């Protein structure tokens, strides 16, 4: 019931978000058709505006947009005039998703075990080294990590390509560049969660009733300690799946992330709104899934 209500609630949220994006991008100065060279006659600008219905009142444009959206049509791109927004998303999103999912798995795969281990070894040398490395990963931004990786693995060692998106081998460096920061964040979250849990009474109880240390840690402590990571993962996944401007630029990857930034700079109205709606849907749905997974992980959580 609770989730049904949440699902229904998605619709007004999306309407509000899409309207805000729709109106705000039109309020910004400049139009999609402004170029360094003025068109040869004002008639041309008028024809362009009419073509994309920009000469109509805003509410009418929005109604038209909603009608198209209901059919799953995001409309034509106003910057890339041979493509529709659907086309661009269809081509770019899978690439971004592959990269994002890779980075997500990389971050989880490194972050969770490392955080878990360093919490168990809390206060020992391993803990300090790992904490320091995690901090380093958080502090160095992708636009430094990316070129560093390229320098070492593409130029010095000649192992991996410096960019483009052609084979699984091309994915390794971008995935690391994108995932490293999140691996650091997750390992810290995991370590904090684990440290807190290890002091709670039910762990003492588990130990007291003679459960082995491994079973205590994995079966009892882990399930609760991972909760902060899980709640962080929803928005993180939405973020990663829709691409990364920085990493896609550095490696020349044909994803959707660059469009998130460029479309608003280009005033590509339909593209901006389309991407905002897409991102919102992903974010809302993944958040819902995260809440759902709480019930599976934490027996204390129940939704009415």
């Amino acid at each position: 019931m609770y989730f049904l209500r949440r699902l229904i609630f998605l619709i007004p949220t999306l309407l509000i978000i899409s309207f805000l994006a729709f109106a705000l991008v039109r309020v910004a100065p400049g139009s999609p058709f402004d170029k360094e060279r003025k068109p040869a006659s004002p008639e041309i600008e008028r024809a362009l505006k009419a073509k994309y219905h920009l000469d109509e009142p805003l509410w009418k444009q929005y109604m038209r947009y909603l009608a198209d959206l209901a059919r799953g049509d995001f409309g034509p791109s106003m910057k890339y005039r041979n493509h529709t927004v659907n086309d661009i998303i269809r081509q770019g999103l899978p690439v971004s998703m592959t990269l994002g999912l890779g980075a997500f798995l990389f971050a989880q795969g490194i972050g969770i075990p490392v955080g878990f281990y360093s919490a168990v070894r809390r206060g020992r040398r391993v803990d300090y080294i790992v904490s320091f490395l995690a901090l380093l990963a958080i502090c160095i931004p992708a636009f430094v990590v990316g070129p560093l990786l390229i320098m070492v693995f593409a130029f010095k060692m000649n192992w991996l390509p410096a960019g483009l998106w052609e084979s699984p081998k091309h994915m390794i460096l971008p995935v690391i560049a994108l995932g490293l920061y999140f691996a650091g964040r997750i390992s810290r979250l995991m370590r904090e969660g684990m440290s807190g849990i290890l002091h709670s009474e039910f762990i003492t109880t588990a130990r007291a009733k003679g459960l082995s240390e491994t079973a205590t840690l994995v079966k009892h402590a882990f399930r609760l300690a991972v909760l902060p990571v899980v709640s962080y993962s929803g928005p993180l996944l939405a973020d990663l799946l829709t691409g990364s401007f920085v990493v896609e630029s550095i490696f020349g990857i044909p994803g959707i992330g660059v469009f998130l930034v460029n479309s608003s700079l280009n005033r590509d109205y339909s593209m901006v709104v389309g991407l905002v709606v897409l991102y919102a849907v992903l974010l809302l749905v993944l958040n819902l899934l995260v809440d759902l997974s709480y019930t599976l992980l934490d027996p204390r959580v129940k939704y009415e």
Partner: protein
Amino acid sequence: MTLWINALQLCRRALRFLDGAHWLESAFSFEAAQAFACKICIRNLKRCQATALQIAVVACLAGCARQEQRADVVIANGAEPESLDPAVLTGQPDGRPAAAMFEGLTRLNPVDSTSEPGLAERWEISEDGRTYVFHLRTNAMWSTGEPITADDFVFSWRRVVDPATACDYSGLLFYVVNGEEIATAKIKDLTKLGVRALGTRTLEVKLVSPTAFFLDLCAFRTMAVVPRKTIEKYGDRWIMAKPLPVSGSHLLESWRIRDKIRLRRNPLYWDAANAQNEIVDILPIDTAMAALNLYQTRQVDVIWDKSLVPNELMDVLTNRADCHRFDNLGTYFVRFNVRRKPFDDVRVRKALSLVINKRRIIDRILRGQERIARSMTPPGTANYDPPEGLGYDPALARKFLAEAGYPDGKGFPPFEYFFNSLKMHEQIGVELQEMWKKELGITMTLRQTEWKVYLAMQSALEYDTTRSSWIGDYNDPNTFLDMFMSNNGNNRTGWRNERYDRLMKEANSLLNKEQRAAKLREAETLLVRDEVPILPIFFYQSIHFWRREEIRGIHYNILDEHPLHAIGKNKSSKLQVPNSKS
């Protein structure tokens, strides 16, 4: 230590596996991979949490790109083309691949970028220079096998001036009878355009006045012939039609946005025998660092966009043998808003112009061999020799400023210099600021905005002074000078001068080249010496990268146009290529 070495070896082996196996397309096919992923999905449907992940996996498998045969020539081309439709596109990154797909009556010579016979093999020009009769080649045909007819040209040119097409460059057809009237909707009937088919292979064009550069215009991409049936069938997205009939040297094999444009030699092109390559890849890379990385690791053979050279590395890069710099038709200048005080006073504009040490700007910021600009039209432009505009004379400048009522800059209102966000523009702005402060005692503040705001404010004349640039479309002074006529949308200074307008009109109606040049020179003198609504700073250079021993067919020319059919790879250069097995 040994552990470390073992780990390294393991890594290498894993990489070699990825390398050799090509597992995505050979070990199991793409469809099989999808089916496999689906099966896993269905099996685990109960775990709803996992399903989301698996849906993502399926989507992602679609995202794993396939490996293709490496192209003969791979070119980093700058920004993603907005369009490949010759009538719609505007930018150079768009025009370069499009020019290979669609040809006009003439085409550009790869060596010196002059016009040479294209789809028309010869033509006659009437004595008054206002009627051209073009004869199309008998072997001119679409890539689908149908002949290219004079009617195809009539359709293509009418399409350009039709306001419904919304072609930004329709101004190129204003030289043709009724072109302007149709584009500005004064005449609704497209058939009134001064172009008609005299036979299947004969085309007659009537011009408003003898236009010295008309044959150059015919080589410009806007004037190329486009396939009527495909356009009528598919509308805006006709360029993605399969098969797409093309009239130029290359077929569009695939276009994946922000990924790659793959062009393949068109076997039915009239000059197909001389094409120097089979496949060309055009990569839309807009980051300088990415382009350079790919070039260094030989995933890219040519970098030919000026924006693709990292400014920080300029000193190192320009000394390399594979770095090619040459002059092109481009001018960097400052616009004054002559509608605003105190820039409505010509003495103020002159004073501000005379204190700019352009050499210093070139040496300190551009670090290249760019030429100082004292005119709007770059020297080397065909049929022309530009006049000498204002130079560097601070003493005279102070005199002018005093005459205008601001001795030593006293009472001069603070003003703004407006530019779009880019490191180089900011650095030049700082130099201007310093020179104006030091020599004239006046205060300028820098104001930067993003591109679209910059354009909008410049058009609306909401600025005091602003950074500007202009790249010539064709090799004639007209492309630099007609924009400052009173009603031209690219004027953007508020400057209106009847004498200038009259001189420009007179010049372009003259048949004699010397007389025409003299008139144009007279007009430009007004622009850069007497009235100075603009302050030219330097002329652009093109910066390209390619290895001379590997790539042939790219020549230094003033239009910076390099037809793709002429570019090829040298056979002898079988170099060891790391990292690019595909």
